[in-house]
Every structure is written in structure tokens, then in C-alpha cells.
């Protein structure tokens, strides 16, 4: 069992957890993720590691409540335990000194962008970060990102915090202003990564995205996470999760993410019904 040491409700349907997982931080590098399973009957889901503390043997994760598993997790408190945590998984991000790096986080994707932003900053790059959220209540990691960026932009869809607009708008402004960009890192909803990648292809700026495809074992065994990159089938878990955004077939990714839509709804409905009856 893996103990929840801290739980914080960040916004509506969004929680931050610090979990005791002593083996995970040892070899952790930015860009990697864990697979968690909440209880005996739970499913295995991949979650990005936002922070890992080697001395304390803990990891920090941000989890948005979208289905039965994440709602179940959301009901747990500090002191409770979850049955499984395994990682770190996936290839770490390639962090080098390359010049100006634009890191773009959309929603909970910011939890992935944050450790990379920090790593690129520490590697001596000029870091411009753009964060986009649905509204004020969904904002996460603002201070952490601000501290690790040379320039910092925050936007909300409805204008309730920061500028009104999308991350794509801010990126376009940078381009319009003729700003130098050597690398873009974009993590967020698939549709955001798709749009950013389309834009940067036009700017001819290399773009890295982190793909959130459906995974089960996340060790290369099942192939459920397969994505198409440059016309080839890749497994997001062992070949990724980061890929060249200009080569990813996002339409396929978006379709594949809907594979269990029907069952996810069914599971959540029956879960909510059970909660009501309690």
C-alpha cells in the first residue's frame, strides 16, 4: 500500500496528492510518469510525476476528476492509502541548453510542463512559459512556473484570471512579435497539442508533446497506448511519452482516447448512484 501524505483540493475536480512511494524518486527524471491503481478492483491509470523527493521518498501528482477512478481517488484523504504506484515510467525529457524554450501547459498538463520548465531553466535556457486554464479555479502551479521562467504568461478561457484567451493566442503573439524560439514544449489536452503543433510547424520550430494515450501496464506489454508518429506505430509508454509534435497523428490519438467513453460513463454513473444510496 502507498500512503497519501498530503491531499489538497486545488480547484473544482482537481486534487494534488503527495504520496509515499519510496522506490519511485530514486531514478526519476522530468517527463516521466507513474501508473497508479486505487484499490483492489481499480484500473491502472498513468499519471505524470509533477515532483519527486528523493530524500523523503515521495511523489507529487495532480489528478483531475474525470472518471470513476479519479473520483474515487479524490475522495481519499491524507492518511489513506492506495494499492499500487509503479514507476518512474517512460523516457525522460531530453534537457539541453539550446537557447529560448517556450513551455506551454494546458490545464492539468501543466503538471508535466512544470518539472521540464524547471529543468530547462536550470540548464541555462531562456524560458518563456505560457499557461492556460479553463477559469480561475483551475489554475495550478502558478508560483512554481513563474519562479522558473524568464517570461511568464497566464490565460483563462473565460478571462476570470490572467488574460482571456487560449495558449495558442499567446504563442501567436510571440510569433507576431518576431520572437526567437528554439524549442516549444506543449502538454495539455490533445486538441491543444494538435493546434500548437500545427502552428509551430508553420514557424518551423521544433515542438515536443507528451501523449496521454490510454495505458494499462505501461511497460510495453499491451500496446493499448499505440500512437502514430511519422507514419509509424509507436507505444507511448516505452517509446514516449514525448514525441515530435509535427509527426504525431493527433486525430488518431483523439479517436483512440474515446475507446472506452461508453464504459467510462457507465462506471461513473453506477458509482455516483452508489454514492447517492449511501
Amino acid at each position, binding site marked *: 500500500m502507498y500512503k497519501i501524505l498530503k491531499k489538497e483540493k486545488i480547484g473544482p475536480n482537481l486534487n494534488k496528492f503527495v504520496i509515499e512511494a519510496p*522506490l519511485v524518486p530514486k531514478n526519476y527524471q522530468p517527463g516521466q510518469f507513474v501508473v497508479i491503481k486505487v484499490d483492489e478492483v481499480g484500473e491502472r491509470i498513468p499519471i505524470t510525476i509533477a515532483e519527486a523527493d528523493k530524500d523523503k521518498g515521495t511523489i507529487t501528482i495532480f489528478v483531475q476528476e474525470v472518471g470513476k477512478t479519479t473520483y474515487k481517488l479524490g475522495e481519499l484523504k491524507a492518511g489513506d492509502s492506495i494499492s499500487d504506484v509503479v514507476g518512474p515510467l517512460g523516457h525522460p525529457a531530453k534537457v539541453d541548453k539550446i537557447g529560448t524554450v517556450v513551455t506551454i501547459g494546458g490545464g492539468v498538463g501543466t503538471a508535466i510542463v512544470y518539472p521540464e520548465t524547471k529543468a530547462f531553466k536550470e540548464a541555462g535556457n531562456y524560458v518563456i512559459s505560457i499557461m492556460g486554464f479553463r477559469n480561475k479555479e483551475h489554475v495550478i502551479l502558478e508560483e512554481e512556473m513563474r519562479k522558473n521562467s524568464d517570461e511568464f504568461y497566464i490565460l483563462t478561457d473565460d478571462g476570470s484570471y490572467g488574460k482571456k484567451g487560449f495558449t495558442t493566442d499567446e504563442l501567436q503573439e510571440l510569433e507576431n512579435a518576431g520572437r526567437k524560439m528554439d524549442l516549444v514544449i506543449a502538454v495539455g489536452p490533445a486538441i491543444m497539442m494538435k493546434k500548437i503543433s500545427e502552428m509551430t510547424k508553420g514557424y518551423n520550430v521544433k515542438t515536443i508533446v507528451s501523449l496521454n494515450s490510454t495505458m494499462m501496464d505501461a511497460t510495453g506489454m499491451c500496446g493499448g497506448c499505440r500512437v502514430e508518429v511519422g507514419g509509424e506505430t509507436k507505444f507511448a509508454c516505452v517509446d514516449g511519452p514525448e514525441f515530435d509534435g509535427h509527426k504525431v497523428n493527433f486525430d488518431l490519438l483523439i479517436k483512440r482516447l474515446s475507446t472506452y467513453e461508453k464504459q467510462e460513463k457507465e462506471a461513473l454513473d453506477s458509482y455516483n448512484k452508489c454514492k447517492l444510496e449511501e
Partner: protein
Amino acid sequence: MSDNNGKAPREPMPKQEAEKRVKNFNEVALGYTEEQAKKEAERCLQCPKPLCVKGCPVDINIPVFIKLIVEGKYPEAAKKIKEDDILPRMTGRVCPQEDQCEAQCVLGIKHKPIAIGRLERFAADYEAGNSEVEAPAVQAKRNKKVAVVGSGPAGLTVAADCARMGYDVKILEALHKPGGVLAYGIPEFRLPKVIVGREVEALKKMGVELECNVIVGKTITIEQLFEEGYDAIFLGLGAGLPRFLGIEGENLLGIYSANEFLTRINLMKAYKFPEYDTPINIGKKVAVVGGGNVAMDSARSAVRLGAEEVHIIYRRSRQEMPARNEEIENAEEEGVIFDLLVNPIEFIGDEDGWVKSIKMIRMELGEPDDSGRKRPVPIEGSEFIYDVDTVVIAIGQNANPILLDATPEIQKSKWGYIDAESETGKTSMKGVFAGGDIVTGEATVIAAMGAGRKAARAIDDYLKTGKW
């Protein structure tokens, strides 16, 4: 023995009726009764130079254990088997005896061979049903540590053998439950998971430690394991990376690798959704591509999940199918339809990205290829469209890259598997041994156990002499 009854018919295996079993995941083969076991055991000729033993990858003393069954000494029979095979309840169920021990049985020349596997299962089940979990005796402690990576048949064997020899053993398992392919791959109806659980319990009683959720190569590296004080490491990772056909449309929704399909069902219990959280999609018409045991397991699982029509698609003829005859027969009894000498060339999807049909081509058999089987050759102009809702691809696996990418010191074969000496399991890295599917490519449970047994001996030798 002259009073044997070799000419008597081979005792049939009692099974759940096909109509009933397609609606549950309970074990299909029910096992011999005491009476049946005795009757079957009495057919054994007790050959002075038994050929059956030569057919066994772990050299079980078959005539002796069969004689003990004749004498009604069932627990003793089980103990005799366990001297060479620590998992007889599993191998009695899943070994391809018809190609191994039973293929060598002299009775098979004129009559039917002795049902060695069924007797093995009987003795081991009898012992388990009539006693507590028992741990084999352990020798004096040697104060050396062995790490075993993977808890499938190879890993469990190495762990048991090394523990018996007095070593401190720890098994590291990547998934959240032990057993490897025994847990995620082979379905409940062929190998009940309580059996796997009990064997793991027996190992723990011997002092073997087990830690799940550890991916060697990620969570901890081989080098770090040595730094932590392990003296030898055995790699029994399994093959692990599913092969796809490499044709257009393979990533459409509703197309699974057999690994994913079976893991969702066996390990994650998707057949109990929504009681269990992991879902699975089963359409009305399911097509399983492949002709091996994994294909049969997938097809028979699909039947139980309520598919109206389940097909096996295989590019050669029935004769070339690598699956055990018993499994092909079980599948047929359960209504699986065999579409032979056809091969998919493209998957076609609907507007939402779900697979809706397969473009197939008919095949004919040509000259034998390297495997000795007749090579399937496409018949030009024979393409046709075949409607489906769900596809499972069961055409084998490649080597899992995680550990090998993290450990360049370990040499790979040209197929990407670990290059290990067949008699010892020694790899190119000092102190590191390997065995099972990660060395041979996809093979059998018993072959992996045989490799584990050899590696355990070599580990003992290495730890005693220090010689590499």
C-alpha cells in the same frame, strides 16, 4: 509390471459441458477422480528405460510417480514430481504433453499414450486439497543474495531452487500481482488463479521475498541491484512486446493485441466490469488473428464475454496450427469458427475510427519454410471484405525493450532477445543470468521452468566458486 492394463482405453478428462462453460470463466477440465486416476495409472507399462522422462524438459521421474498413484500414495506422488517440477498443478494443466512426455510413451505406438499430464495434475491437486501450503525444506543459509526479475514460470523456479539451496531470494515483479503470464496471460478457465496464488504462498513460506510494482531498468537498474548487495541476478522477464501485422488500419478502435485483451480480462478482471473498474469492448462479431494457444485463449474468452460470433483467422491450414489440439477442440466445442487459409491485408474503419471490416486475401500452401511448415502464399485476385466489430491480434511477441535499453552490457541476439548460454543462462554481464521467453522468444511454461532450473544450478555454482 506384467499385470498392467495398457490396452485399456485412455481415461477421458471430465469437462464442464460446452453449453454451460461458455457462460462462465470457471475451469473447463475438471480433473480425474481418484478412481479414474488409478485406472489410468494402471495402464502404465513401467518401462525399465522410460522414454517419457526423456521427453520431459525437467526430467520428472514419471514412472515412479505413476506407480505411487497406482498404490494410492497420492501425496507421495506429488512430492516425487516436485523434486523436479515445483509447479505441477500448473504444468499438469498447461504443458503440451502430447509433444513431450506423452509423445514418447511406447503405449502410443499401438494404443493411446498414458495421460501423464492429467495424472500429474491429479496428484498435485490431491496434495493441495488435502494439506496446508507446504514449503519444501531449505538448506542452511549461505548469506548470499539473489534477485529474481519477473515472477513468471522461470522466475518462480529460480526463486524456489535458490531458496532451497539456502540463498536469500527476492523476486521483483513489474505488475501489481505475481505470476507473470500465469496471471495475466492464461485465462482462469484453463488455469485458476488461486493455484498461482498458492504456489507464490509456498515460496514465501520458504523465505522468498516478493516485491510487486518494481520495473527493473526503470525503478531500479541492474547496477543498483548489485550496489544494494545482490550477488547474482536472474532475468525472467518474459517476451512482452506484442507483435502487430504492420498493415493499414491497425490502430483503429476495437483492435487489440492479445496481450492487452487477455490482460484486461485475466489480470484486471474486465469480465466483471463494472464491479471491477477496467473495461473491455466486445462487439457482436470478434475475429482473432493467429493459430496458437494465445489465439485460442483469446477466442474462448471472447465467447465467454458474450460475443455472438467468434472467428479464428489463420493463414495456414488446421494442421499447421501451433495451438494444442486439446485447445482447438475446446474452442470448436464452444462454437469458435475457424477461417483457415486467409490473411488480413487491411483493416477498414467507420467514420468514428472503429474497425468495421477486414480486407482479406485467400492463401494456399506452398513449399515448406524454415520452420518446416508449408509456407502460405497469397492467391492473386482472391481479396474479399470480411465484416467485424472487434479484432484481437495474437501473432506473437518481440522482446521487451525496457531492461535491455537500460543495460547495454547485456548482449542481445539478432532477434533482440537476451543472448544467454543455453546450459547455464549466463549472459554477457557478470553475475547476470537469464531464461524463459526473454531468451528463447515465446515458448512454453515448462521450457521456461527448465531454463530456470538450469540457471539456478549455474547461480549456485557461480556463488560457490566465484568463477564466471
